[in-house]
């Protein structure tokens, strides 16, 4: 790759201390660009960071692991449900959100919101 020679290389500008500060910065960014070209992984990382700037300082760290450990958590609190039912005796309970996988926020989960987990009564198709 043909590197653009920084303008600061000229003798005149080198006299100015101010300009000298910029030289290493330009060279650094050139190095970074080289890294991105040679390492596909780093290029992918840059892409990801561009899309999700707040992705988090600790890659694959605690947040991700803790989410993994909590797999399968549903949010149904029978206490909340019964309290809500008692309060709103005459009113309809808020309708179920269209996305039934995530039940959070103001919506009071109802037993109907939890997807039915029936055992497979049908035999496996591998045995067919």
């Amino acid at each position, binding site marked *: 790759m043909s590197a653009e020679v920084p303008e600061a290389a000229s003798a005149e500008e080198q006299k100015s201390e101010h300009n000298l500060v910029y030289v290493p910065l330009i060279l650094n960014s050139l190095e970074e660009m080289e890294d991105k070209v040679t390492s596909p992984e780093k290029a*992918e990382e840059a*892409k*990801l*960071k561009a899309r999700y700037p707040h992705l988090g300082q600790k890659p694959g760290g605690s947040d991700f*692991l803790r989410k993994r450990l909590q797999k399968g958590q549903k949010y149904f609190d029978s206490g909340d449900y019964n309290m809500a039912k008692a309060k709103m005796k005459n009113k309809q309970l808020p309708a179920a959100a269209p996305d039934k996988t995530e039940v959070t926020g103001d919506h009071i989960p109802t037993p109907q919101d939890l997807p039915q987990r029936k055992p*497979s009564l049908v035999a*496996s*198709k591998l045995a*067919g």
Partner: protein
Amino acid sequence: MAGAGGGGCPAGGNDFQWCFSQVKGAIDEDVAEADIISTVEFNYSGDLLATGDKGGRVVIFQREQENKSRPHSRGEYNVYSTFQSHEPEFDYLKSLEIEEKINKIRWLPQQNAAHFLLSTNDKTIKLWKISERDKRAEGYNLKDEDGRLRDPFRVTALRVPILKPMDLMVEASPRRIFANAHTYHINSISVNSDHETYLSADDLRINLWHLEITDRSFNIVDIKPANMEELTEVITAAEFHPHQCNVLVYSSSKGTVRLCDMRSSALCDRHSKFFEEPEDPSSRSFFSEIISSISDVKFSHSGRYMMTRDYLSVKVWDLNMESRPVETHQVHEYLRSKLCSLYENDCIFDKFECCWNGSDSAIMTGSYNNFFRMFDRNARRDVTLEASRENSKPRASLKPRKVCTGGKRKKDEISVDSLDFNKKILHTAWHPLENIIAVAATNNLYIFQDKIN
């Protein structure tokens, strides 16, 4: 490895010529979640092949005896038994749904006419007994042929019941249920070479069980930090050594493997050996740790080596050398330039398994687009094969596949961007003695055999 024509193979070489043998499962495009195969395992003799699925069901296939009138049909696998192993549960206390998906099946070595296997979901391990019944007693004294009890006072003569043959009936019954020992999700079970104990591992702990005792289990590894905020790694797989009953290994999400010796202390928190490949710090990226996470660890049959599978490669380690693997095989290196999208669609977290062949001369693992990879360790050759219905004529040879990474795509090649990431082969198994492999492609089970000339 599919060479042109049979020919003689080089001395000691594995000139495999894989051919389609059978495919099990439904053809329709609409795959029910429950039908997705989640584990595949041959038993010790290779005569039985068990599969578990997301619906909690187990299907066991048995190899037919070779038929002299059809010499080419080298023992096909047909359904032997099927049963519902686990059912969905709901833990109301923790508001946790417990999936019925079978995470692992492990066979016990056969000790009598019956077969035993361990099957596990996220929380509970079950010991199943599969037994045959091909005789039935007739001529009871105290009951009629239809089962109605006879009045004992009416019996005037006694007879000895006789055993008569009946149609073979295969029964599966749960003999032990090992429950309530895991707070986190079980990822591995492994039967010990002592044939009396086994281990079960979840994200943070490993427990040791005795096959006869269900109300007690010993915790042998615990990596849970006192403060969960400090959690940096989890256990991803664990296995007992095939011969040394005191040795086990467990892999982590950070790409390391720890070998523990149960003789050194009751709690094996301190490892005896620590296997980690040094990483070049300048090449570190956001993805480094995620793709280094080991999804499977398997000892070789010899017990001298072990193999680890991370997202992009398979590594073979000599147990005597902790500093680095002795072999590294790239499975699909072309995915390195796709990590961003693989992270977004969660594929980067897919857990691929790997397996050895019976002689430890070859290893196999799955990939995407229903491709799977085979590495011949001696000849230092590798091949990419595909499990697809299009190539499912009986005894049809499998043609090697190639992924083209850039620039010009040759005629039979497929470009990286055309790969179907929903067609993942996570589970494969190799017959312990012969060149027969079972490959699970979502809801279909493919069986391939090496062509005998």
